[in-house]
């Protein structure tokens, strides 16, 4: 089971990194803040995928756990930047006053909330895939509070959903900027 998931996570990493590099390429020519912020967002999404891959590769429980948690925290950074980018030039900055409250919650819940927020403003397949991806973060968060015997099952389902939606989102998005 690990190998197909690992391959899928790695494909997601490459696809998001490809998008970040294409954006970086155009940023160097135009110097616009929205492209800069998008570059950083997609770069962190790629790092999130890389952390997910490393959490599978490392057999050491401490390293594996650290990468597992980093998967959500790097996704938080990515989605936060997307939200900042969306509202930075508008009068909605008060939304960010709620962030300290959110930070008291687990990384998975925060990643879930932020990705849901980004999904609300997305369109088409991106909206669907982002919604599925955010639901996987909620499932990861739920796994912490379910009974000990259910944890592996919930985590397995959450990771499968997260992995599948992230790789599909990465591939779909990278096709948009793909340059043959």
């Amino acid at each position, binding site marked *: 089971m690990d190998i197909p998931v690992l391959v899928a996570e790695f494909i997601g990493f490459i696809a998001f990194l490809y*998008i970040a590099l*294409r*954006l970086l*390429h*155009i940023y160097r*020519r*135009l110097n*616009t*803040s*929205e*492209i800069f912020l*998008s570059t950083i967002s997609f770069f962190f999404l790629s790092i999130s995928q890389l952390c997910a891959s490393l959490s599978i590769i490392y057999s050491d429980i401490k390293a594996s756990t650290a990468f597992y948690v980093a998967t959500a925290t790097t996704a938080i950074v990515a989605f936060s930047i*997307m939200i900042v*980018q*969306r509202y930075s*030039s*508008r009068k909605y900055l008060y939304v960010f006053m709620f962030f300290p409250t959110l930070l008291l919650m687990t990384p998975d819940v925060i990643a879930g909330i932020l990705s849901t927020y*980004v999904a*609300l*403003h*997305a*369109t*088409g*397949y*991106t909206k669907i895939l*982002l919604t599925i991806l955010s639901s996987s973060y909620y499932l990861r968060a739920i796994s912490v509070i379910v009974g000990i015997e259910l944890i592996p099952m919930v985590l397995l389902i959450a990771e499968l959903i997260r992995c599948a939606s992230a790789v599909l989102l990465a591939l779909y*998005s990278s096709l*948009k*900027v*793909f*340059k043959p």
Partner: protein
Amino acid sequence: MNKKRSKLLIVLDILETLMQGEINPTRLATIVNMPYDRLSGLLKELNEKGLVKITIIGKNKNVSITPKGVEVYEELKRIRELLEDYGLI
């Protein structure tokens, strides 16, 4: 709510107009719906980056797109679609 047009979309509008052919900056300002002085600053920046070419013959000033500008335009179109999908622009 009126959303402020981002620099990315303005540049895209300029390059899209220039794809139709050489144009006078005053006419370009009308087409892309922005003040002439602001457009002049942006055209100077795009000229320095090699994306557009400004030619002055006598009293006439014209702007045209360069091959590098065409390349950036094609790339920006793809990026706009991606950023619109994520609701970022």
